[in-house]
């Protein structure tokens, strides 16, 4: 089972303070510290980061393509969740 290259980790980098961490790829590492350092060296060489999260790839839970219909389509017709659904009297601003 053991892949001698270390386990796979997914890397999320925050590019500026205040912004969310964004997935940017994966990395191998045997332990947490090594994976963190490897992520730093691979994904922030060009001044791209202010913070890094790493997580073992095996710990990611993802929805599957078969779920797409039941998961996401029900949201299609719920237009009342969007502000453009509502009529506002002329002359009202900042709402």
């Amino acid at each position: 089972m053991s892949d001698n290259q270390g386990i796979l980790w997914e890397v999320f980098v925050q590019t500026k303070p205040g912004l969310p961490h964004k997935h940017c790829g994966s990395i191998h590492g045997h332990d947490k510290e090594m994976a963190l350092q490897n992520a730093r060296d691979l994904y922030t060489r060009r001044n791209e980061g202010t913070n890094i999260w790493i997580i073992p790839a095996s710990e990611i839970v993802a929805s599957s393509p078969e779920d797409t219909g039941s998961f996401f389509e029900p949201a299609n017709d719920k237009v009342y969740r969007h502000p453009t659904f509502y009529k506002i009297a002329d002359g009202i601003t900042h709402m």
Partner: protein
Amino acid sequence: MTTQEALFNYCLRLADNHLILGHRLSELCSKGPVLEEDIACTNISLDLIGQANALLQYAASIENNGRNEDDLAFLRHERHFYNSLLSEQPNRDFAFTMVKQFLIDAFNYYLFDELKKSKDLTISALTTKGHKEITYHLRHSSTWIDRLGLGTDESNLRTQNAINELWRFTDDMFVMDEVDKMLITDGIATDLNIIKTKWQNTVNGAFEKANLKIPEKVWMQYGSKQGKHTEHLGFLLAEMQHLHRAYPGVKW
């Protein structure tokens, strides 16, 4: 010796330490145990050569004799290089490389931390920037010392061997001479005895934690500050300088 001459020499020491250590690391490019480590080692090598470049530029400006940083890197001979004996030792295996890095990273970490306070503003600026990079280098090499020391019997043995072999070059880093004394008085350089105490604490602590021992009764080797090196430096320079020397005076 004038202060200017002392300062020139002092900058060469700092620069050469980095240049030669960075060169040794760059030899490993594409030869790492895992790909990620290739990237880590080239990163550190780039930091070191970058710092050497800046320090040599400063040295050239102090000398003010028409030489530039490349002249200083590629046209000086063995006896005019002042890097520590430890930095020029060959890589041999990954344990040698990491033990060497760790011993020097710890030295640089405390040295640069002190030099931030230097009254020479350029040295202060360069070491302030450099210290951030070195902090990362030390983190990288210390975690490897831990891994290798505590990993397998083989890795512990190899790391212990590397320590045993390299230990005799460690004292050479702390030698002080006229250059140091003169610049310490001026508040430019730093007292290496202070660095040595801190360095010993860090090294002892890391080795103890990783189940590694410092060898006893080791006969120390000295000479780098007089440009007296081990035989390894000549070969390193032959490789590094040959192209530059083969076509004198041209641009690259």
